[in-house]
Structure formats: structure tokens, C-alpha cells
């Protein structure tokens, strides 16, 4: 299958997946910070009529309204074209970077083999590094084009940080090449399906523990997250986006969250086996008998879990009903239908209508979906790690940051390469 339409479809799936991760990340950040700071977090905004609050998820919608209705302005003496171009570039780069990641194993449907991955490039992770190195310009140009010395200084710091840590990220990637023998992300994931030392899955983190650490730290620095958030550093300097407001600021914000999701995806793809379920090979999942078993398991699981969740939400509804006078009192009822009984009923209907031939129609797609779910679970864990670190660790001082990057991580990366070479020569891997 090829042609323009197919190419478009292949790019659209990861694109939508990354975009829909933005509200999830904002939700995770707000509720996560509230949890760590022992607060309740956002819980007021609700959908009128239904009373849905979704534990603060509805706040995202109000945010969108706020950002869209804000005044669009360009500061005086700013370089107008570059000022508008910079946030667009930031979002564009972070979305493009996600295109090389294989999201599912190879699936067969209606006799055609396919895989959800926009670009199956031989150079895989190198393309990823190259494209994200262009992303630095978004920060630099934003700082310069706003014609404000504080934003220029913020941009300088952020840029210096990003190009310094790109180096250690590159060194960590070299170690991966040596172990896997290929820069192709799809092949990397396939290799990680095997086993290591008899019991462990052959994941990158066991083969390259130092490389993982390097990549993780560099990933934090690349996304400008705490402990490396020099780009913002509210308490000491103002960041590169002081002069931005409204939608243009929102674009930077979205770019940062997508960048985080992409780094989390790359971490789970390179070091945690990507779409591979530990100890289970994709072939096992794609096997027709197992697929049938799996689809039945998923349907029954949805039914049981749906009923349990629905009952629990109904019990909560009894309490919640008395707290509110407006439509929020309906929330428990609506939720129990939407998240509990509804899915359970849908699963029951699907089982009764197509139960028998479901696995034969869908074929190995079920295994593919399980793979996608596995990748997303790993990605969400790393996304949570980003939030967790941000709300528990203090920020580095700028000179400490540079010293860590150049004096510790770069030598460590070089040692890692040497060590990997020796171990490969000794046939341990």
C-alpha cells in the first residue's frame, strides 16, 4: 500500500495521537502537582447540564477558550515575521520528531501488512536528533525577535543548554547503535523482544544502563523541564517567551508538552522495548488462537471492570448528589454510565454480535492494539516521571548545569562507549 493518501493517513495517526496527549499532559501536571503538594487541584469547571468535571479535565477546555480570546499583539520594535514564525516552528518541530517512532508491531489486516509508523527510516533515531536540533532556533528566534533584553538573555541560556545537552544525548545514542547494530527504531524494538541473561527481557535499559541515565538527563534538559528549566526560571530571570501571549504562547506551551511526550516515547522505544510486551513476542500475540483468546479476554475484562467501576461511581454519586445545587449533582450518574455501564454494555453487545468471528476479522490488529497500549503505558509512566521530578526537585544553578553537562555527562558518555565496545568484544552481549 502506498500513494499520497496512504502516506497522509500514516502521518495523521501519530499526529493526532501526539496532539491528544496535550490535554492529558496538562491534566497530569495539574493533578500531579496537586497530589504532591497535598492539594485538591482543579475541580470546579464543569460541562453545563451534564455536570461533568472529570477530575479537572474540563479545565483544559476553559483554558482553550481563554487563550483563544486573548488579545493578539506584537510588541513594538519586534521583528514581526520572526516573532510569529518562532512559536509555529516550535510546534512543527516537536510534532515532526514523533513521526519516526514505531507505534505498533507489524499487523496484517485483509491480507495487507502494515505498521503504524509515519516514516520507517533506516536512519531512525539520527533523523530524530537532526530534526530536534533545528528546534533550538524556535527558542533563539523567539527570544531575539521579541526585542527585549530579558527574553534575549533567556533565549541565550536556553539555547546554550539545549546544544550542550544534545551532545550527551548523541553520545548515549552511540552506545545504543553499538548494542543493537542499527539506528533504525523499528529494528531496535524488534531486537528488544528477545531475552537477556535468561530471565530479563532484552531491553535497552539492561544493556545500556549508563546510556539510559545519560539519555534521561539529556531528555530533561532538551525539553527545558525542571531541574533544567533555565528557559523559564521564574524566580531568577524571565524566559524567552515573556513577550508572548494568547495563542502564540499557547503554541510554545503545546510544543513543550508534545516534546515531553515524544522524549517519553523515545525513551520507552529505545530503552524499554517500545511496543513489546515483556516476555511475550508479537508473533504470539498475532497467532489467531491467542488473538481470539485475547479479544475475548479484553471484552470480558471490560464488562467486569465496567460494572465494578459503574457501581463504585454510583456509590460516590450518593454522596456527591447532596453537595451541589447545580447540574454538578448529576456527575456521578453521568460518569457511571459513560465510564462504567456504557463500556460494559458495548463490550457485551460486541461479544453477542461478532463474538465468534471477531478475531478472524481483525486478525493481528488485536495484537497491534495491545502493542500500542503497551507503548502508551510506558510513555505515560515517563510523562509522569517528568511531572514527578518537576514538583519534587529544585532547579540547578546555571554554572552547575553547564558543569554537569560538559564535565560529567560527556566524559561519562565516552566511558560508556568504551565500556560497551569492550563488552561487545568479550561477547557478553
Amino acid at each position, binding site marked *: 500500500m502506498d500513494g499520497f493518501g496512504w502516506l497522509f493517513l500514516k502521518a495523521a495517526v501519530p499526529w493526532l495521537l501526539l496532539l491528544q496527549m496535550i490535554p492529558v499532559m496538562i491534566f497530569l501536571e495539574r493533578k500531579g502537582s496537586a497530589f504532591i503538594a497535598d492539594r485538591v487541584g482543579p475541580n470546579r469547571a464543569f460541562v453545563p447540564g451534564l455536570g461533568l468535571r472529570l477530575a479537572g479535565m474540563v479545565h483544559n477546555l476553559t483554558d482553550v477558550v481563554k487563550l483563544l480570546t486573548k488579545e493578539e499583539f506584537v510588541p513594538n520594535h519586534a521583528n514581526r515575521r520572526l516573532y510569529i514564525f518562532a512559536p509555529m516552528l516550535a510546534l512543527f518541530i516537536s510534532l515532526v520528531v514523533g513521526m519516526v517512532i514505531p507505534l505498533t508491531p507489524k499487523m496484517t489486516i485483509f491480507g495487507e501488512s502494515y505498521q503504524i509508523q509515519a516514516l520507517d527510516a533506516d536512519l531512525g533515531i539520527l533523523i530524530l536528533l*537532526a530534526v530536534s*536540533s*533545528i528546534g533550538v*532556533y524556535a527558542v*533563539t528566534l523567539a527570544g*531575539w525577535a521579541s526585542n527585549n533584553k530579558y527574553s534575549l538573555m533567556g533565549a541565550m541560556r536556553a*539555547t546554550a543548554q539545549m546544544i550542550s545537552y544534545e551532545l550527551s544525548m548523541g553520545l548515549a545514542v552511540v552506545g545504543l547503535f553499538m548494542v543493537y547494530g542499527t539506528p533504525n527504531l523499528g529494528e531496535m524494538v524488534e531486537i528488544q523482544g528477545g531475552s537477556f541473561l535468561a530471565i530479563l527481557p532484552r531491553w535497552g535499559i539492561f544493556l545500556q544502563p549508563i546510556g539510559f541515565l545519560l539519555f534521561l538527563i539529556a531528555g530533561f534538559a532538551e525539553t527545558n523541564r525542571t531541574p533544567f528549566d533555565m528557559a523559564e526560571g521564574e524566580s531568577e530571570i524571565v524566559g524567552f517567551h515573556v513577550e508572548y501571549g494568547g495563542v502564540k504562547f499557547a503554541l510554545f506551551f503545546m510544543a513543550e508538552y508534545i516534546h515531553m511526550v515524544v522524549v517519553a516515547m523515545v525513551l520507552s522505544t529505545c530503552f524499554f522495548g517500545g511496543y513489546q510486551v515483556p516476555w511475550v513476542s508479537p508473533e504470539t500475540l498475532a497467532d489467531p488462537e491467542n488473538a481470539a483468546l485475547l479479544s475475548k479476554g479484553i471484552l470480558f475484562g471490560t464488562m467486569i471492570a465496567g460494572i465494578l467501576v459503574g457501581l463504585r461511581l454510583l456509590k460516590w454519586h450518593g454522596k456527591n448528589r447532596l453537595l451541589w445545587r447545580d447540574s454538578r449533582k448529576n456527575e456521578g450518574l453521568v460518569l457511571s454510565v459513560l465510564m462504567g455501564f456504557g463500556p460494559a454494555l458495548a463490550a457485551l453487545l460486541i461479544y453477542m454480535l461478532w463474538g465468534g468471528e471477531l478475531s478472524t476479522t481483525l486478525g493481528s490488529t488485536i495484537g497491534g492494539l495491545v502493542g500500542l497500549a503497551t507503548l502508551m503505558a510506558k510513555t505515560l509512566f515517563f510523562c509522569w516521571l517528568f511531572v514527578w521530578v518537576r514538583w519534587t526537585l529544585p532547579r540547578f544553578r546555571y554554572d552547575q548545569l553547564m558543569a554537569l553537562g560538559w564535565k560529567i555527562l560527556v566524559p561519562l558518555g565516552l566511558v560508556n562507549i568504551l565500556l560497551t565496545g569492550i563488552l561487545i568484544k568479550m561477547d557478553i552481549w
Partner: protein
Amino acid sequence: MEQKTLFFILAAMAVISALMTITRKNPLSGALSLIMTFISLAGLYFMSSAPFVGVLQVLVYAGAIMVLVIFVVMLLNLPEGELEEERIPPRRWVLAFFSLVPLGFLCIAQILSTDMKAVDSLGPNFGSVKSVGRLMFGDYLLQFEMVSILLLIAIVGAVVMAKKKL
């Protein structure tokens, strides 16, 4: 057909942005056009079965070296009109004419003498990381090491120049 269209788009981008690099008055616009040139050249490398070289072009030139150029331009941050209006004296035009005409003749002669037919396929692994690595660390090891020593000398020189007290 697709290949041809893509080639002409990339080539046009490369030429136009290269022209912009030397004609823009604002130094930052010039530097940004140069980045655009590098990126379109990388695209051309991808099309001539040298993807690894293309990636390195973006990663090293567009992504790292040009950042430093932009840094310098931004930190100097000359306001509009600060730059002296440059006048080109007539003798420079004459000199430019005499140096460019032979070069132009060489280029045209080269283009005319090139056999414009499809090149044989280069094999699936041409230009991949593996084959480039084999060449670099096998056949051309000596040259590779010499270049790395050259770069080391350059780094040491930069440190000596930048550090007042050694």
C-alpha cells in the same frame, strides 16, 4: 516523476536561499537563509542516496554550527541603519566580471559534457550508516585520524586564544 519534482523544488530552494544569504542587508536574515540552504542541500543528499550525509548536514551544520553564528549576530544586535551603507566601486564590478566569467564557462562546459542519463542503481546499502562507517574506519582510517588530529589542534588553539592565563 515525483523524484524530479522534488529535486527541482529542493534545488530552487537551495539557490534562492543561497542568493538571499548574500543579498539580505539584515545579518540575521542572511544567517537564516544560510540555514535554509543547508536544509535544502540535506534534502538533495537524501535524494542522491546519501541519507547519512544529509542527516549530518542538518545535525552538524544547520543544527550546531549555525547556532553559534546566530548567537554572535544576536549578541552584537546592530540596530537598523547602524551598518554602513556599502557602495561598490566600479573596479570591483570589473574584477567580479573577470573572475566570474571563467567560472561560469567551466560550469556550463561541465553541465554540457555530463551524460544526462539515469545512473545505475547504487545498491540498497549505499550511503547507509554501516557502509559509510566501513569506509571511514577501514579504507580511509589514516585520513580520518589525520582529520581528527587537525580538529584537536584547532580546539587546543581556540582554548589557548580564549584563555588569558593558562
